[in-house]
């Protein structure tokens, strides 16, 4: 799907990919996040950390009526408070989407797909 803005001189269409890239880019800057994960873990491998080009596999943008919902799949770092990290991601993503796209999202649902212990001390 894509999101449309009706402007004075025409229409601006923003595709899911753009939103996914912004959402993914914001998420990986959040503290406690190790990466974005694919929604389809079985098909794409166990908790594979997505590369930048593939963020859209871990970010789902849904439009229900006028409301925009975002589901995102992430991997967090071992030893952080997961609920708090996820909450930070929610507020940061919401803020960034509003700032960059002027988009007010209704909900951001976070699915923790994995905990990374690989790079512990």
């Amino acid at each position, binding site marked *: 799907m894509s999101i449309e803005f009706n402007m004075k001189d025409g229409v601006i269409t923003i595709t899911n990919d753009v939103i996914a890239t912004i959402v993914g880019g914001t998420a*990986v*800057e*959040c*503290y*406690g*996040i*190790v*990466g974005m994960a694919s929604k389809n873990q079985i098909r794409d491998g166990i908790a594979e950390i997505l590369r930048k080009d593939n963020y859209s596999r871990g970010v789902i943008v849904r439009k229900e009526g006028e409301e925009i919902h975002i589901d995102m799949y992430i991997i967090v*770092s071992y*030893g*952080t*408070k997961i609920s*708090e*990290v996820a909450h*930070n991601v929610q*507020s*940061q993503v919401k*803020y960034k989407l509003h700032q960059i796209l002027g988009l007010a999202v209704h909900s951001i649902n976070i699915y923790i797909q994995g905990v990374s212990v690989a*790079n*512990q*001390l």
Partner: protein
Amino acid sequence: MTLEKLDGNILAEMIFVGAHHLKSNCKKIDALNVFPVPDGDTGTNMNLSMTSGVAEVKKAKGSNIAEVAQAFSKGLLMGARGNSGVILSQIFRGFAKGMENKESIHTKDLAEALDTGVKTAYKAVMKPVEGTILTVAKDAAAEAVKLAAKESDIISLMEKVVESAKASLEHTPELLPILKEVGVVDSGGQGLVTIYEGFLASLKGEELPDAVETVAEIDISALVEKEHHHIAQDFMSSEDIEFGYCTEFMVKFEDEKLQENPFSETAFRNELSNHGDSLLVVADDEIVKIHIHTEYPGEVMTIGQRYGRLINIDIENMREQHDAIVSAEAKTEAPPAEKSTYGIVTVAMGSGLKALFENIGATVVIEGGQTMNPSTQDIADAVKQTNAENIIILPNNSNIVMAAEQAAEIAEENVTVIPTKTIPQGISALLAFLADEKLETNKANMLEASKQVKSGQVTYAIRDTKIDEIQIEKGNFMGIAEGKITATHKNKEDAAAQLLGNLITEDDEILTIIYGEDVAVNEVEQLVDKLEEKYKELEIEVYEGNQPIYSYLFAVE
């Protein structure tokens, strides 16, 4: 007073004082919060996290430092609130890990624990953003590690840690543009500095003054200026301003009016938003301040009057302002860019030649050449324009060499003239230029290169004349080799062939042809075909020079 050993009791005390100091400063820290989300809760979040940490420490209080640190870490983790709280919990998780199995510690252990804390904190983030609490923690720990080898006093060590954390904090706006824009230091970093300050005060047995509770009010005027700043910078013209009046006023609430119309900041804001943009509404119990860009200020103020009296009214016509700003901006010069090491000024005619020179490294190409010599002033201006430390001028014409030398004399910069007399010489000289080399080396190489090349030019005669024993008729083409007329012909291609016949010897390898604006592409192709047949070993390069006067410029090397 010195302290060489740190045990659980002392650490617990440090944590209590640190937490208390953070608490009394948390409003101040909130006010700094603009990153990652400007929601002004960093201080509060850190305080709540710390409080949870303190509660666990109280339960575990004992003389074993590993246990105290572990309890603190656990409390922080459980109570972590907000981004800064989570980072704080990670810093002290690593810190506790660094103290594992230890009864008490010395400076070296403390430094290592701080360092482990930083490493742990950094590991939990994919793309660490510098200029945040992470940077402050890192710089402070680095200082501790550096000093620990020779410093055995924990108090002095902690003093240096606080100092370097503060220095790092002051530096955060340089690393994180948003901080600089708003003019604050990082809030999380400030929180960490505050905690460290508490640690130090506890070690020294000093009392820390409670922070004054009044927090500097958010500076609305600064915000307003920022709004205007954007408008002025934006690429709109005065006609594009939809809402023409920047309207600022305050409403002082009146009880009887409020009874009739209860005030809700959100509802009020929503209502005003229909009347314009750039809206700011800030309210407390007594007053609401409004900033809005609107076309009808009166209507907005009427709405405000429902709740009380209007005070401090200030309305500006932004269309007028915008015109003023734009014209003022046009006058202000851009800040001087940093000087480059080398600047190259050269003279050429024709768009193709200009582009050719620019492609091979000329900074400024002055329009000019035969019959249109640039003045000393033109060259001096071009020299200024390069904004470089060392400027090399390639005049490319014997008539311009003098002017170039004069320009070099009057210039304040370090100017060198390589006396190139033809365009091919200029090109060769420029090709020999290497930006990494010293000026002296470049000078020698360029001069040498300009001498290596043989120049030929084909141009037309504007009147009948006789030069160097050659009779020339008006309208005929002349071939000039190294400044001497050696060929003349009715047809420019024949003049070119004749000229090249004199110019090219068996030792030559490359012929560069730059054709002028009066030459058609098929004419060049014919000439090249002819030349290729005659000089089988020669490599021929062709450029479109678009130069006037000279049909052909030849460089033979």
